[in-house]
């Protein structure tokens, strides 16, 4: 299996690491090479795998370029298109006239905020949430990404860029749901190492939402993993956007569905597979640890270098 890699305007590559996750702000690429003509801000594509079987695993922009002596090597740090949203800080020239929107759907608010950072390759799910019904929504003194992420968090949605550079705003829960279809199957001969973890660290069985003008909502449910009558609480504070009781209650219900569960996860290291991306579902079987069925791919790390090409996954049930 002869290894293959190609990076824009870069040759004699020493190593590459790509990190992508359900919850991370951006996908990042860390490239070590001997020759490059890349400069900060340049567009970058990373294609790796094996000769005759490879594909694009990252597209983005150079954020940091380091040249080292005495090894005379380059260390190139890249992030995907959402780094533009992270870098774009919304600050009105007149503090009395901030950026405002009235009676706007959540997905369109995210679209417009990202467009301020020149990100227009965007697709947003129909959320059924409308903001600024009574009072306009003001967006000021925050980055485009932070505000889009804030909207996503209060609705239990996610915002991410795929490998082609398109930004998605979607309700993707970090576990397998009934409508998911597995895209690949892996079993014991594919794994170099594997583990399985169960934890209630992120479990919350009560969600309280604070909105504007005395708008507040709550959702809760008993958990079989906690003592009777015991509630671990999460708070969603969104007084600038929730001015409608129905929206606040919907947010509480969505976040309870997201949070009221044990986190069952598995960390897998396997022979490099460039075709796997986070936010997909795969079928995994490893009988000694009782791992079987469909698992949600929460994070993917591709490591490529003289030590070989490996892919590390964090999977969630």
């Amino acid at each position: 299996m002869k290894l293959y890699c190609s990076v824009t305007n870069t040759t004699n590559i020493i190593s590459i690491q790509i990190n992508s996750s359900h919850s991370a702000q951006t996908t990042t690429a860390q490239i070590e090479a001997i020759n490059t003509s890349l400069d900060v801000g340049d567009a970058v594509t990373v294609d790796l795998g094996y000769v005759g079987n490879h594909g694009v695993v990252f597209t983005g922009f150079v954020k940091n370029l380091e040249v080292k002596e005495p090894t005379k090597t380059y260390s190139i740090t890249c992030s995907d298109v959402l780094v533009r949203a992270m870098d774009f800080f919304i600050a009105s020239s007149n503090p009395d006239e901030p950026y405002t929107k009235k009676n706007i759907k959540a997905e369109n608010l995210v679209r417009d905020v990202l467009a301020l950072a020149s990100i227009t390759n965007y697709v947003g799910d129909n959320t059924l949430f409308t903001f600024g019904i009574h009072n306009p929504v003001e967006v000021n003194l925050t980055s485009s990404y932070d505000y889009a992420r804030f909207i996503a968090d209060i609705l239990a949605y996610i915002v991410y860029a795929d490998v082609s550079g398109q930004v998605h705003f979607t309700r993707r829960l970090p576990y397998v749901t009934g409508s998911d279809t597995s895209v690949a199957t892996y079993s014991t001969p594919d794994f170099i190492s594997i583990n399985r973890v169960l934890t209630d660290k992120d479990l919350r069985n009560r969600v309280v939402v604070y909105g504007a003008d005395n708008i507040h909502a709550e959702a809760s449910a008993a958990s079989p993993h906690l003592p009777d009558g015991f509630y671990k609480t999460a708070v969603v504070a969104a007084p600038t956007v929730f001015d409608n009781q129905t929206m606040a209650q919907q947010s509480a219900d969505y976040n309870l569905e997201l949070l009221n569960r044990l986190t069952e996860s598995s960390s897998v290291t396997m022979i490099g597979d460039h075709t796997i991306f986070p936010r997909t579902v795969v079928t995994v079987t490893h009988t000694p640890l009782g791992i079987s069925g469909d698992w949600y791919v929460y994070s993917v790390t591709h490591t490529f270098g003289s030590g070989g090409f490996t892919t590390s996954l964090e999977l969630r049930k």
Partner: protein
Amino acid sequence: MSWTLNGIRIFVNKHENNSRQIMPTLQPLSGGTVVQFFGYETTIQQIAGIIVGRVDLLALQELTTTQLAYELTSPEGSLGNFYIKAVRADRLPSVYQTMRLDLDCESPVYSVSVDLQAEVV
């Protein structure tokens, strides 16, 4: 023709020639070892021999500071250009040398070992 490195005369009594392919091996939990191919190292050579005279020794040691590749020639002809990675020298006890008749018979005699890395063109 005798052995020379950038024209410096060396009486070679040992010549090692090593090559290596970079082959990461990954061991799955079950099944055979998976072998991947990352590339290869350029030829590494090591010559050991005798140098006569301090002038030649200093000239040889100077080659480790230049970041340039130099031609290695053998009795069979040129072996290519190499970067001089390391030079190790021990002075041998000598009363009278006859290896280099163009030099003084009381010239110092050194045992040297030189590590060479092939130049990539």
